């Protein structure tokens, strides 16, 4: 069932012009992100959040010679890539959902031209109703709930679809799966 949901999520996200990759482990995830950033060298990145996965990503990027900038508006504006984790994915629409009450979370996902979104596949829910009710049932509901579906887009000139008008023109989603041999969560446990 959850496998189906993930497939639906991937399909919906791609329909919204997001790129979707799967990562079987955190180490694979970090390698994939490093690989993605090769195309942009010399490349600087901003990473939002300070959880285990974000730390692993930062480590891997630094090791690969990517410049990690501190998160504030001028650096985020300068960075090529912004990276952060999302808590939920809505299968119905391919939407990424996060409590973006932290200023950093919004900076890294809205200013750089490329946005890398990491989503634990356990976080995929069927629809908006589920996502919203989970978010607002929390003891501390988000002050700023962010829902992101595909890249920034406009059709304001002659109705021609153009990506990346004010937000990122490229959205790359990494779905972190752990349905493998148990080693998949190698990075998620201290």
């Amino acid at each position, binding site marked *: 069932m959850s496998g189906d949901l993930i497939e639906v999520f991937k399909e*919906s996200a791609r*329909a*919204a012009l997001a790129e979707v990759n799967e990562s079987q482990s955190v180490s694979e995830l970090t390698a994939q992100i490093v690989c993605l950033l090769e195309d942009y060298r010399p490349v600087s990145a901003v990473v939002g959040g300070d959880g285990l996965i974000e730390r692993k990503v930062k480590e891997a990027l630094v090791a690969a010679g990517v410049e990690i900038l501190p998160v*504030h*508006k*001028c650096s985020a*504006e300068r960075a090529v890539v912004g990276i952060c984790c999302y808590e939920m994915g809505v299968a*119905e*629409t391919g*939407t990424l959902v996060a409590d973006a*009450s*932290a*200023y950093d979370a*919004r*900076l890294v*996902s*809205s*200013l750089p031209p490329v946005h890398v979104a990491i989503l634990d596949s356990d976080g995929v829910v069927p629809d*908006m*109703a589920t996502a*919203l*009710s989970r978010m*607002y049932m929390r003891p501390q*509901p*988000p*002050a*700023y*709930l*962010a*829902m*992101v*579906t*595909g*890249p*920034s*887009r*406009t*059709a*304001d*000139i*002659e*109705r*021609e679809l*153009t990506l*990346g*008008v*004010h*937000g*990122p023109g490229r959205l790359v989603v990494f779905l972190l799966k752990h349905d493998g041999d148990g080693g998949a969560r190698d990075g998620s446990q201290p």
Partner: protein
Amino acid sequence: MAVSRDLRAEAKRALADPVLFAALHRFSEAYLPARDEALAGVAFEELAERISAIRQHNISRVCQLADMFEQRALESGACVYRAPDAASAVEYVQKLALERGIRAVVKSKSMISEEIGLNHALAMSGIQVTETDLGEWIIQLAGQRPSHMVMPAIHMTREEVARLFSDRLKIPVGTQVSELVAVARRQLRSHFLDAEMGITGANAAVASTGSVLLLTNEGNGRLVTTLPPVHVVLVGYEKIVADMDEIVPLLQVLPRSATAQRITSYVSIITGPTEVETRNGRKPKELHIVLIDNGRVKMSKHPVFKEAMKCIRCSACLNVCPVYRLIGGQVYGDVYAGGIGSVLTAFFHSKEYGARIGEFCLGCRRCVQYCPAKVDIPELVLALRQEHVAARGLPATANFILRKVLPDKGLMHGLLRTASRLQAPVTTRRGFIRHLPLVFHEVSRNMSLPALARQPFRDRFEHSSVGSETVALFAGCLVDFVYPEIGEAVVSVLRRLGLCVTFPEVQSCCGIPAYYLGDRKTLCMLAEQNVRALAASDPRWIVTACPTCAVALKKLYPEVLSPDAGLALVARTISTRTWDFASLAHRLIRDKMKPVVDGVPATYHDSCHMKRSLGVSGEPREILRTLGYRLHEMKESDVCCGFGGSYLLKHPGISQRIMNRKLDCIKQTGVGTVFVDCPGCLLQIRGGLERAGVYLRVEHTAQALAASVAVSESKHKECVI
């Protein structure tokens, strides 16, 4: 906001603008297929019912919800100001900006900020306001008004935008759209980073949490709500929903209806202030929510117009409006466009001005079909018109007919000649008619005009009491005076079935033309007259070959006669017994019909009243197919032909352009015969084709059936029907 606008002149200019025409048509053509795709797997009707129910409930308790919202928003740390009107809302924001020493403001698209005239007021205080939605920014640079609610710059070509950018930004710019978008990104970036205040609207305000909801695609909304240290949200009372559960259906329909997307790129829900970066480090930002009434509470208490409070501002109604796609929102509307715009303008700005904008509404009801909140926009426009007429007398249209058409022999005879030319095969000499059809009902009190048919139906009808059950025929003006042959076709088919067809003589115009001019009094008078006439013989069925008359008999009469209990009861009986011809024929003879033609290619045009008021579209097609016609569906078969009763006289230019489009759709099918079920559509389409020198047969479904009766009789075969 220019109440003194010359709307007719503006419409004329818009009609002559090929760029606007092409852009709006391209958009409207792409919209419906894209919307259908976005709605795949969604039960739209059910969802629309739900939205409608939610909003109806919320309208009835709008002040209570506003109180709750204010309370929760305050608890979340926001400042809330309840602005009774536009001026006070503007003053609040202006004062706030001045007190904080704010010089630069960035905005994401907000209709309500335009409604209250905020940009102008802030600019007057020396504050620089930058619109950041690409379309709005283009319009701001050009010093124009938006032409479309969702795509404000849709009327401009890429070349025009490139020229504008080069002129205003003093930089060389190519004409690739991607390049233009990149210019906008670069240019606006510093505005985002440096702005001291961000202003947004809201797609909803949630009472139970004090949250505001924002849907955007470009990402400017996220920057406007994230970067500046002060965030001002402008939100109208109609946007308040009770709780998060009510957000869900809104998220499901709003993007799908607005831009045919399953969801917008960004959905943000803000509850209280968050942290922001300043020169002195991080600190909580200031969040100000301005809850704006400006006529909304009054609207929510109005027995009729509270319906407009259901509007979720998706613009689906505009996307499918045949008038809007010709003249756009710069003409057809003020801040809010189209039919719904006229109603909103009436409450937020001026009743008179709103009613004037509403004159562009054709009443084709296409918008109702696609409205995700089930707002009956044409009825509201009509109610506005009626209010206007009741307060100020004759509408401009009637004035136009009475004072311009009548004294102007050329114009009047031109109109009549056109109609009478159509009647050439049956009109050999001109007599006089007793009751004038359509909009000339006003005129007919004072004078007679030449008859269009040599002999009206009422004089050609041969009474006969033969037959089992009684069917009373309601002719309607066009059948009676212009196309008596359609009435005769109906009679021949029904008599062939062994029915006793009667024609109650006292019947007159159904009253809808008067009603559409805002003259409810005349409708009531005619309703009573017709109901009494039809009830006299206690017929089993009442049939009419005009869907507009059917709407009057079935839907309007019981309503307008409701103050008189006795009469209302009769009207309800009449209503249940009334049938449009195609539906009655389908019911009575569907099993008895046999083919009489062998795959003759034909097409069918759906009349607005037939399809959307009566809900009939399959029956006539089934009849025609059974008779042996091979139906080729034309594009947009259910889009109005432009006749619209008096609309033809009110806005001849628009009417003609809508008709031309219909003719193109007909011609594209390559068939030789067009069937319709409405004599008005028949008049318009036949007249248009003749003027264009295209010789196609345009007939009423009743005529197809009657011809089959004749064929069967001449061949002495077994009865076809």
